[in-house]
């Protein structure tokens, strides 16, 4: 995962291709939230705030166990408590840890026009670089899961980094470490998929027939997957059934095409200049001494006679600073 130089970059926002010099054999990492094991204690929320030094926000009771009403620039991880009335009169209490899902095909990155502001590392982590963020909020529009949040104070967008600083130093993310029930797990993507499939099988044996591993194809998979016991209630959990990147991004590929067009126009212009130069050869202005002498002779004429624009233009171009003032005074 980690190298002595840092994490290998797979791609960056608004940067056509990244370097081909690095070897593409990095391990892909993933978080997995086993919703079946989650007790909704919010230790992950606190651990996230603590590790990332995020400001405390005043909360209020709005009828439930949920602490904040929504994610904010200072709350990157939020336990959502959704209550759904069932047909048999019972209630489904759908608890979900909501934070960035680190898509394999990140809508935010594809939407971002600021070069390098959103980076996808070789291990799959998608991180924002606030230094390069221009605050346009296209990433918010591009995200199929509604995760990034804009800070009106700093004019930048923030979200979960999957503790890229910890992961690149061989530590697990803060939320994973804190989780007291082992509901949030961390490992290679492969290992997590294996765990998820096994767990889904167990849930199905226990009667949760629609249990599933949430790793949707529309975003080419996630680096934070869910084991969802009630798979038939994905929407109620707040997870889109079939998230896609392109459906929300019609405008942004067009931006990319525009960028290519602009680049093409620039190079065509340069090529045109070069061809012009080759055809006509070098062209010189009159020698400086002559130009100065000509300007001097014109400048010594009576001021009243210097009325035509061409003459004035010549005088302005002359290198003698005195001539200009003399002529127009």
């Amino acid at each position: 995962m980690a190298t002595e130089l840092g994490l290998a970059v797979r791609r960056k926002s608004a940067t056509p291709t990244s370097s081909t010099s690095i070897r593409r054999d990095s391990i892909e990492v993933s978080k997995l939230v086993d919703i079946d094991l989650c007790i909704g204690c919010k230790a992950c929320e606190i651990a996230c705030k603590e590790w990332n030094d995020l400001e405390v926000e005043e909360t209020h009771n709005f009828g439930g166990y949920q602490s904040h009403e929504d994610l904010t620039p200072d709350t990157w991880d939020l336990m959502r408590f959704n209550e759904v009335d069932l047909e048999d009169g019972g209630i489904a209490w759908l608890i979900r840890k909501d934070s960035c899902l680190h898509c394999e095909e990140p809508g935010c990155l594809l939407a971002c026009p600021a070069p390098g502001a959103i980076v996808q590392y070789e291990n799959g982590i998608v991180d924002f670089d606030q230094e390069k963020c221009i605050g346009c909020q296209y990433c918010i529009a591009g995200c199929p899961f509604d995760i990034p949040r804009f800070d009106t104070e700093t004019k930048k967008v923030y979200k979960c980094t999957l503790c890229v600083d910890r992961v690149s130093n061989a530590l697990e993310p803060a939320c994973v470490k804190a989780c007291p029930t082992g509901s949030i797990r961390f490992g290679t993507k492969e290992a997590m998929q294996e765990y998820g499939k096994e767990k889904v099988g167990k849930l199905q044996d226990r009667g949760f027939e629609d249990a599933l591993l949430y790793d949707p194809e529309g975003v080419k998979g996630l680096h934070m997957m869910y084991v969802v016991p009630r798979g038939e209630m994905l929407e109620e959990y707040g997870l889109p059934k079939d998230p896609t990147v392109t459906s929300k991004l019609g405008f942004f590929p067009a931006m990319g095409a525009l960028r290519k067009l602009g680049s093409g126009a620039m190079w065509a212009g340069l090529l045109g200049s070069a061809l012009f130069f080759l055809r006509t050869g070098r062209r010189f202005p009159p020698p400086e001494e002559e130009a100065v002498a000509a300007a001097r002779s014109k400048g010594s004429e009576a001021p009243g006679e210097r009325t035509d624009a061409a003459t004035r233009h010549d005088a302005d171009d002359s290198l003698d600073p005195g001539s200009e003032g003399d002529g127009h005074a």
Partner: protein
Amino acid sequence: MNRGGWVAVELTRRDFFKLSAAGGAGAAWAAFGFDMEPAYAQVRELKISRATEVRSVCPYCAVGCSMIAYVTGHESFNTTPHLVHIEGDPDSPINGGSLCPKGASTMQLAVNSNRVKSPMYREPGASEWQEISWEDALDRLARLMKDARDERFVDKDDEGNTVNRNEGFAWVGGATISNEEGYLTTKMFRALGCVGLEQQARV
């Protein structure tokens, strides 16, 4: 500018434009797909990378989870140690590195600006708390304990057995108390004749 010979020392306006164009063309390679940025990015330095690990126990409940406190300037001669971060100790068989939400926020017990730093006293009938010194607080505690003991001390029970017990107060300890502190407090309150002794600590 001399048309026939090469004059090296002069940088004319024209030469300046030429150089600018060359530089611009170099920068424009990026537009053709040549990435000028490094392929590896050093992002977000680990904030505990240079901190000292200090082992500790969670102060809150009786489970007694082990924690690691990350401190800068630890035991350095001229430095006041500064707490950077607290997280669970993975070596602990109790919590295996995990912490509950309250335990995960333990650092706030030390660094939060809203934390109470001296004894607080609210007079009977008053609505406001006021800060008092430890001296005053301990004096008042001692006074009340003595009064309560004098008032409610029982020499003999109804059947005439000598009991020498103090029914005026009970003692309740917290989870932060260690074995040794627990032993000492038990000794002291037994000496005062206290019967009701309880504490949450199972550490």
